[in-house]
């Protein structure tokens, strides 16, 4: 009696779900991302707007934790055959994704196969070059990209009598001296130090970070950032720190509070801190281009990006990929990109989105917000400045962090620390080469 009731119920439930899926007939596209908080809601809005714009596909965004967790989750899911269609991967995971040729569906190929028009020239060169093969084929779709800028406290500058925002490292020194003399605890600080002070410093002065075109040309690359320019710059910063001109405040964005609470007058870090800055800083602030080391180069080259891109994974039913292609096109449309750029402080990925923001008067009413784009598009990127492609780079960044902390703690000279970082990093490169032969 009981059993038969249960069976009837089960049959009814099965019929119902069957009907439901039959009636909807939309193809669901899974999108795993690492955007939490306000940006997570913006991601949901992009997906919802796309879903409302057509009725065949439904993009389902899922937050999988931070960048590392999202990437690990996608890899584990791939090994189990349950991968999402699209996954957001941070820039340092690029080499790992690229090497997984059987797992990723290159964006240029996807667009070709699905017959969608796709013009690479519409994208900002400094943004897409990070994710291209060495012969210019786009592998993943840029989504959120930023670049380091020099944030400065306008009120503190006024008080210290600084009239010109520093554009060279010599001017950084004199400005910092004035700031400290005016009673500030420190002149400047920076975060994401490997990205800002090694990767971008090198690109900005057109110096290689590693051999084989920063790893673009092959896995047999070796690090070379232990050169005289980098060593000299870091050693000088350490020497300045004894007089309080520089103060180290931790990894990632940990030192943001040192700038926003008025301890330090300048801060070098991502342009994407714009939103946080607006919320936290109680003073007038501005952003300027990174300082130039006049001993190393006559003029700056261009900066490189950080952030993440969307990778398409193989192994889903053929019917999904048309939807994926349409969604990626929707995502890079000027309207969506301009909105995303203005809301978050990430740079727009296409020239059209930049133009649109300009027309909408965004840069006029928010001066300085185009600094990042200017830095990125200063010159046509060279092999030294289009990005980097090293395996195991997540760990290499941690090694660089450790060795730089040794400099700031006075445990090693800049020269020793950089030599050690290169030696340790090269070991990881060999390991990656071995695993991906």
């Amino acid at each position, binding site marked *: 009696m009981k059993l038969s009731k249960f069976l009837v119920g089960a049959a009814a439930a099965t019929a119902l779900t069957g009907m439901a899926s039959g009636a909807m007939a939309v193809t669901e596209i899974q999108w795993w991302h690492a955007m939490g908080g306000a940006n997570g809601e913006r991601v949901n809005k992009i997906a919802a707007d796309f879903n409302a714009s057509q009725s065949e596909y439904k993009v389902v965004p899922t937050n999988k934790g931070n960048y590392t967790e999202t990437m*690990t989750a996608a890899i584990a899911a791939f*090994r189990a055959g349950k991968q999402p269609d699209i996954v957001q991967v941070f820039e340092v995971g690029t080499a*790992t994704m690229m090497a997984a040729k059987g*797992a990723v569906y290159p964006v240029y190929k996807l667009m070709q196969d699905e017959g969608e028009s796709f013009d690479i020239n519409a994208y900002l060169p400094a943004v897409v070059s990070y994710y291209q093969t060495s012969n210019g084929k786009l592998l993943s779709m840029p989504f959120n990209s930023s670049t380091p800028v020099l944030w400065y406290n306008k009120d503190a500058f006024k008080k210290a009598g600084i009239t010109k925002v520093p554009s060279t490292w010599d001017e950084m020194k004199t400005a910092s001296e004035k700031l400290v003399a005016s009673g500030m605890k420190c002149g400047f600080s920076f975060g994401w130090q490997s990205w800002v002070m090694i990767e971008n410093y090198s690109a900005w002065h057109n110096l290689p970070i590693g051999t084989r075109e920063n790893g673009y040309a092959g896995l047999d690359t070796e690090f070379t950032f232990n050169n005289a320019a980098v060593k000299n710059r870091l050693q000088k910063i350490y020497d300045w720190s004894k007089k309080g001109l520089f103060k180290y405040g931790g990894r990632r964005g940990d030192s943001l509070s040192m700038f926003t609470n008025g301890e330090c007058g300048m801060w070098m870090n991502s342009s994407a801190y714009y939103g946080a800055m607006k919320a936290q800083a109680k003073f007038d602030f501005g952003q300027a281009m990174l300082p130039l080391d006049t001993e190393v180069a006559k003029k700056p080259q261009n900066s490189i990006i950080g952030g993440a891109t969307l990778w398409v994974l193989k192994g889903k039913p053929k019917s999904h990929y048309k939807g994926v292609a349409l969604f990626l096109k929707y995502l890079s449309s000027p309207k969506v990109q301009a909105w995303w750029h203005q809301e978050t402080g990430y740079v727009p990925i296409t020239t059209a989105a930049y133009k649109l923001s300009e027309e909408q008067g965004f840069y006029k009413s928010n001066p300085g917000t185009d600094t990042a784009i200017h830095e990125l598009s200063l010159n046509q990127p060279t092999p030294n400045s289009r990005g980097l492609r090293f395996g195991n780079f997540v760990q290499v960044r941690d090694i660089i962090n450790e060795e730089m*902390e040794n400099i700031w703690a006075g445990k090693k000279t800049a020269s020793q620390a950089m030599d050690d970082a290169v030696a340790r990093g090269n070991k990881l490169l060999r390991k990656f080469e071995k695993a991906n032969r």
Partner: protein
Amino acid sequence: MTGGPLPHSARRNEHMLKRVHFKPSLLPFLLVAPQIVITIVFFFWPASQALYQSFLVEDAFGLSTEFVWFDNFIELFQDPHYLGAFQRTAYFSLSVAFIAMFSALVLAAMADRIVRGATTYRTLLIWPYAIAPVLAGALWVFMFDPTLGIFVYALNAIGIDWNYKLNGDQAMTLVILASAWKQIAYNFLFFIAAMQSIPRSLIEAAAIDGAGPLRRFTTIIFPLITPTSFFLLVVNVVYAFFDTFGVIDAMTQGGPANATQILVYKVYYDGFVGLDLGGSAAQSVVLMAIVILLTVVQFRFIERKVEY
């Protein structure tokens, strides 16, 4: 046994034992089957997978795999950072075990002597054991955060420049304290049980002979609870080796500059952050060997001495 000549009584015993044997039945096998299945699924299977993986060099997606025999292990033991993690783990584990056991012993000795409100004290002392490691870590982070922490004001006031985010020794001290704090409750429970099983008459006799509380503790109580102490030592070292992952992940993520990266954290970091599955698996196998060794020690040398 059966081959040699047996005394008459033994033979009769054997005979009787045989007669009372149950008929072979499936039931006992069925009853132990779940346990065996659980052991196979949750221990032997993953352990064999880890062992197999440790002989491979593989990319993260598992697309290209190469069998390399012991290369991962050789590389591991040539890596000064891995050997550094060994040293750190030894230092960390022994410190955690010592602090957790010593504090618990003192607390238990005190609680053992209390007459009024003993249950309340005991309950309160057992509480921390119910807190998840991650939460314990979060609590300690709040108390010792360089800019927000309440204890940091006090430390600054007495002239200590506290910043565990930059200072490796401070970070190590902090994770040791947090990990030890969490284990005190467990140790306390065992110590107090052991102390209460000591016959009161022994202690009273000593008291009548004029021994003070300290002397009674050092000459009677402590020697009589050594089996428990020994058992706890092994349990605590194993705890420090493996269960402290949550505390470290919540507090320092192994930093600054690897100062708090102990073996179990390195397994996680290399495997899940670094995506070096072979190297991470090799480290798991080494850890597995260590825990097997510790268990053997526990059973061979310690369990004998514990009187239940």
